[in-house]
């Protein structure tokens, strides 16, 4: 195969495409920003495609980088309901899709004991919608008025069997309840799946989804996030904290701190009334950054003084 001519830009390769989406992507970026969620263009483009193509999106990345937050922001942006399913090992259909209200069913059977209904009528009654407890997945396809946002959080924690079930749901957006019949989605939900990559997901599921990898943010982006989320913080302190956390990420910890940890640390410093970062402050807020003894030891032995820029000096690039 022959790639197009050298040094042609995509602009000249695609002069003839219709134009309207740039506003769409920009609208998403600015909309997210109003909600306090800082998204780069890559993420915003993917979200734009989610809203246009109505495919699920799989967001992967290290812990604490705002994967879950994305779904919340998307729900607020679209002004839709957020339905959340937290996955865990052993998650089964009963707690993810639906469950019958057994106590109520037993009571109903007792109450109807004297009635002259046939067994079939009784059965139809106790397996009607009245006795059905809807769990997140069923809720998400039963929305009456508008498509909700369905967040399937930490899908890597659920087992393969559940993943296979999900695959079925995400392709047809319907759920079959043996006693009642098949429920079709009136409005296809916007689906956001997140994964920490604690295990490899199935190929089929991954292929069904748009994919987005969220990496640790650049210094500038992280600054923007800190300043957006903590409006009260002074820029000098924010820059110190971000520089410090970025340097810590370069230490090769077993659990490198994410943006959530940066925010925790900055907030802790604000609460402690520290005007700037120093060795004492680092020691006091170490618990925000490091979540294991080994990591704490690593940070201490790296020398707290080397990890942040003393006030007044320029910003040096953290080593990676």
């Amino acid at each position, binding site marked *: 195969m022959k790639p197009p001519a050298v040094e042609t*830009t995509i602009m000249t390769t695609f002069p003839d495409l219709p134009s309207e989406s740039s506003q769409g992507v920009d609208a998403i970026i600015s909309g997210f920003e109003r909600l306090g969620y800082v998204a780069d*263009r890559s993420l915003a*483009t993917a979200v734009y495609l989610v809203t246009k193509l109505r495919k699920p999106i799989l967001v992967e990345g290290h812990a604490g980088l705002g994967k879950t937050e994305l779904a919340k922001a998307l729900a607020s942006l679209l002004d839709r309901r957020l339905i959340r399913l937290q996955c865990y090992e052993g998650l089964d259909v009963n707690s993810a899709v639906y469950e019958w209200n057994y106590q109520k069913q037993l009571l109903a059977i007792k109450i109807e004991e004297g009635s002259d209904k046939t067994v079939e009528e009784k059965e139809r009654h*106790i397996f009607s919608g009245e006795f059905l407890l809807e769990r997140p997945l069923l809720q998400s396809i039963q929305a009456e008025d508008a498509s909700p946002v369905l967040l399937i959080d930490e899908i890597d924690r659920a087992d393969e069997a559940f993943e296979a079930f999900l695959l079925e749901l995400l392709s047809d957006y319907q759920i079959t309840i043996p006693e009642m019949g098949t429920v079709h989605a009136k409005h296809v939900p916007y689906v956001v799946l997140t994964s920490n990559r604690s*295990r490899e997901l199935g190929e089929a599921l991954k292929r069904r989804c748009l994919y987005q990898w969220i990496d640790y943010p650049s210094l500038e982006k992280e600054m923007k996030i800190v300043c957006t989320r903590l409006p009260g913080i002074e820029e000098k302190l924010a820059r110190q904290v971000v520089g410090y956390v970025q340097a810590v990420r370069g230490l090769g910890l077993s659990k490198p701190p994410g943006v959530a940890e940066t925010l925790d640390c900055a907030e802790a410093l604000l609460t402690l009334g520290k005007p700037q970062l120093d060795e004492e402050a680092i020691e006091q807020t170490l618990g925000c950054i490091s979540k294991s003894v080994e990591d704490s030891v690593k940070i201490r032995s790296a020398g707290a003084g080397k990890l942040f820029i003393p006030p007044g000096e320029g910003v040096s690039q953290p080593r990676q």
Partner: protein
Amino acid sequence: MISLKGVPSATAKTIVEFCRFVREKGLSASVQETLGALEAAAALDGKSSEELKFGLRSVLCSSKEDWDLFDDCFKAFWRGTVPELSPNRKPHPRDARRSRLGPRNTHPLMSIVSGDDVSSEQDGAQAVIGASTQERLTKTDFSRFPQSDMAALEQISLRLFKQMSRRLTRRRRSGTSRGQVDLRKTIRRNISRGGEPMNLRYRERKPRPHRLVTLLDISGSMSPYCIFLMKFLYALQKHFRHVDTFLFSTTLVEITPLLRSQRLQDALHALSQLPAGWSGGTKIGGSLREFNQLHRRKLRSKDTLFLILSDGWDTGEPDVLSSELGAIKRCVRRLIWLNPLLGLEDYQPITSGMNAALSHIDVFAPAHNLESLLALEKHL
């Protein structure tokens, strides 16, 4: 499916070509993804090359590895340069197959496998080896095998490994314990009795097969045992559903996809081509650290068995080995170390590496002959 009218045919053609291009580079851009890419291009307007790139990336990638590869591919396609594939990317099965057609080299591994076909089609027909021969062969140390016995030994080993995995499979299924009452099934069953719960149904624990992660030491000191252990690993991954297999000497190389995709000889041939440091030095600690950094997510504490096949001669730091092994130990159900040298009568695990490792190991067993490998069953 949305209409593709928005994409002019020239653009569509370029995108299809791009999909074919990235497929050659190792991304999984099948017809489905190509259609997805076209839809994405139609939804985006193409005013910004950046957005088109991001859009195509989210459609065509499905993992971090793809993600890292994509930028180069994109650049290469539109700038006319060909990206270097990163060396640690999994070889595509097709490439592996192609490599067997390449020139045969004189790797130690190949000199053993050349000639005798031990694929599974054959072992049924030729299963006529005297019991006494079998007995003798299963007890012989791998390193002392005369070449003439090799073919016979391979047949026995393949058969025995199959037996072993069958026994293991059966064992997983047995065992019924009564746990919680399953209300749903109970009510369903007792409707005809007016809902009085007479027949209770229980929720049983669903048995789940163990996952196996194996690391084989291929350094110089292990070379007499390497080929047999390699075949052992091949047999294991053929018959267990979840096995991840790695080779290590001074670095770590994953060979799971390589073993899975082909027959034994082709796999061995492809392995001999790997830049894995055959018969080199050993850095067990460093290799385990690499494992921890790159592959730890393959471990799940409740059901992963971690198997290391090594003689424990380590030229790295014992401290590193100990701490990395400790980290692995925390993530697995059982840590098993098979050491071929344990079969020697006067062997004591006193190498510094072995010493450092011993405190973390659950099972420390020999692996010098077939009998000892088969004994592994009771630890799995």
